């Protein structure tokens, strides 16, 4: 079978794996669930305290009502922990057979051999596989699942865990903080530049489950890393919940590029909080691509903490029938001489809805800030919906802040022009869509660009 990180075949056929679970919690959410997760993981007291405070906050916090419709989420109808692996393996041969097969079908081991510096694979609530290239290990790079990191590097965790995104940031950050399991931990030591990307893959298999991975990336002074995450799940009629928290710390003069290719099945609520701190001269990039899920709410952010910090956020969304992609980006300019670029490209098709929320905030004193925000939305059908909600909050005079927006439909004249060159209507629309996403595609490694193109083509043919 052809392999595909974006799980193109799965989108079509929706197979699920038959696997055995070592641990699967019954449905329902209460304090005992939180305590049980912490116990299973043998966590230090401070982490349990953190979880419990977060859970308390989750209970008190109202559901956000400003964005996508979340009223159908039933927290009592979800199982919050499921594990089918006893340990994290660093050899694919040690991964349980059926899980290994799934990741093979997704092309992970093959990609790892060909063009990755390290790979991780998470299945339901726990990490099945994690491995970093040996030379990088020797240089002091750490790339492991976050549970292992808590045991092996408690100081780093204590210093940074929950600092970029406090548990009280929003209701779903609180939920993740209470229930987190798995995710990636990366530490890149001073001046180490990792040549190839590190990749993590997240897989949900069962229905009515929640996945709450927690990722923390610390890039020390002058260091560089590219991280790619992919995800997928088989299609069910009932809902599942994916709520991740991703914290990135980019120290002085470091560079981080974080790429997400999100192709969850259309029954998943994908409610994710992602934020980076960029210190002096650091450069942080989020490349955030949302194709799957029922509902996504995700706005990767960069806080420009010190002078010379730069941010580049590219947000891409494809909302097909039945989907709502509520995505965007935030840049918070705290220090002077900082710059940010936000570009959003969204397509809605059939009854799909895409919303772009962009925020540029310039605090008093952040002199000589440069920021540019652009959002382009394209609607393919008469029932497609698109909203763009840019916000500029500028509390400093000495700034250059720009904003552009275009919202368009595929024009009759443009289609006629392309069709007069012998292209069918479908070919013409595909070409317009490919051109529209070009700014994003050209930033992807070739292998992912090919996958992305294939998936978009499938979405274009797929009239749900």
């Amino acid at each position, binding site marked *: 079978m052809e392999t595909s990180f974006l799980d193109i075949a799965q989108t079509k056929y929706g197979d699920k794996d038959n696997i055995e679970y070592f641990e699967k919690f019954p449905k329902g959410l209460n304090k005992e669930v939180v305590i049980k997760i912490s116990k299973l993981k043998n966590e230090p007291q401070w982490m349990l305290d953190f979880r419990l405070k977060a859970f308390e906050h989750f209970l008190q916090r109202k559901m956000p009502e400003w964005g996508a419709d979340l009223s159908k989420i039933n927290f009592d109808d979800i199982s919050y922990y499921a594990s089918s692996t006893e340990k994290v393996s660093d050899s694919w041969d040690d991964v349980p057979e059926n899980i290994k097969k799934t990741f093979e079908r997704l092309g992970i081991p093959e990609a790892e051999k060909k063009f990755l510096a390290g790979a991780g694979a998470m299945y339901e609530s726990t990490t099945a596989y994690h491995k970093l290239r040996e030379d990088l290990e020797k240089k002091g790079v750490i790339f492991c699942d976050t549970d292992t990191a808590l045991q092996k590097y408690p100081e780093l965790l204590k210093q940074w865990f929950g600092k970029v995104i406090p548990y009280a940031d929003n209701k779903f950050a609180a939920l993740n903080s209470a229930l987190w399991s798995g995710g990636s931990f990366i530490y890149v030591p001073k001046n180490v530049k990792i040549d190839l990307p590190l990749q993590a893959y997240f897989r949900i298999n069962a229905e009515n489950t929640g996945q709450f991975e927690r990722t923390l990336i610390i890039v020390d002074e002058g260091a560089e890393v590219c991280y790619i995450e992919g995800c997928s799940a088989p299609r069910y009629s009932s809902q599942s919940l994916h709520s991740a928290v991703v914290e990135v710390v980019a120290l002085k003069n470091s560079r981080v590029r974080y790429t997400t290719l999100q192709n969850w099945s259309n029954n998943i609520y994908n409610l994710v909080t992602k934020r980076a701190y960029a210190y002096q001269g650091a450069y942080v990039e989020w490349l955030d691509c949302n194709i799957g899920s029922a509902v996504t709410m995700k706005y990767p952010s960069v806080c420009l903490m010190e002078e010379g910090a730069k941010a580049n956020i590219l947000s891409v969304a494809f909302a097909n029938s039945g989907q709502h992609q509520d995505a965007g980006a935030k840049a918070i300019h705290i220090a002077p001489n900082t710059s940010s670029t936000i570009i959003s490209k969204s397509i809605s098709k059939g009854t799909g809805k895409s919303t772009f929320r962009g925020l540029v905030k310039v605090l008093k004193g952040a002199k000589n800030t440069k920021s540019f925000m652009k959002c382009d939305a394209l609607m393919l059908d008469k029932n497609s919906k698109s909203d763009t909600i840019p916000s500029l909050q500028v509390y400093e005079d000495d700034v250059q802040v720009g904003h552009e927006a275009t919202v368009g439909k595929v024009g009759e004249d443009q289609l006629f*022009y392309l069709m007069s*060159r012998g292209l069918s209507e479908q070919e013409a629309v595909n070409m317009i869509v490919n051109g529209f996403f070009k700014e994003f595609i050209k930033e992807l490694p070739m292998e992912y660009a090919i996958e992305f193109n294939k998936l978009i083509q499938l979405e274009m043919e797929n009239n749900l």
Partner: protein
Amino acid sequence: MLEIKNLEINVENKKILDGISLEIKPGEIHALMGPNGSGKTSLSFSVMGHPKYKITNGKIFFNEQDITNLTADKKANLGIFLGFQYPSELSGITIRQFLKKVSDKFNPGLSVKEFQNILGEKSEQLKIDESLISRSLNQGFSGGEKKKCEILQMSIIKPKLAILDEPDSGVDIDSLKILAENIKKIAKENNTAILLITHYNRILNYLKPDFVHIINNGKIVMSGNYNLAEELEQKGYEMVVGKNGN
């Protein structure tokens, strides 16, 4: 080859072509002239199959096939080409990528290298700068660049019939000469018939028409040979076709 019989066209329930008949044979050059808003572009869009132009009466035949209700892509694949007065822009797709896709339709079996060679040769003949080929189709192009790009497409497609809607408007004198020479060359190599829409005689000096038609108020009001174009240039539409164009 092309036979238009008593064509009537509505756009948004307004009649804009009112019984047009026209016959074009292989290799012939027909010039279509007329004041602004007389129906020149409407005729070209109707023949090519723009969905907004509703055919309420009449028929169009191409090589004896009834093509009245075919979509633009089907007509293109039969060998009809339309050079646009205002070509659309296509963001993110370069001329090269676009023409490769188009070329695959009309020149199947061509290798990538063969295609590159042909593209290089044709753009050189049209004096199209190499860097333009790598830019998004028509995006930010000058008037002359857009028109040259249209004729570049024609040279790849090698149509049996080319309807060229003002290939000379917005074009400087040097470019006009290059465009006209290339159109002539392509037409000669492929025995392409041409329906040339223009306001000016200058291009007709290069592409001497076998027939000249004057259109006004959605009707062809006068047809003649090359001399008619010269008469028009000297006297203007009003003097030639009468005040009401009848």
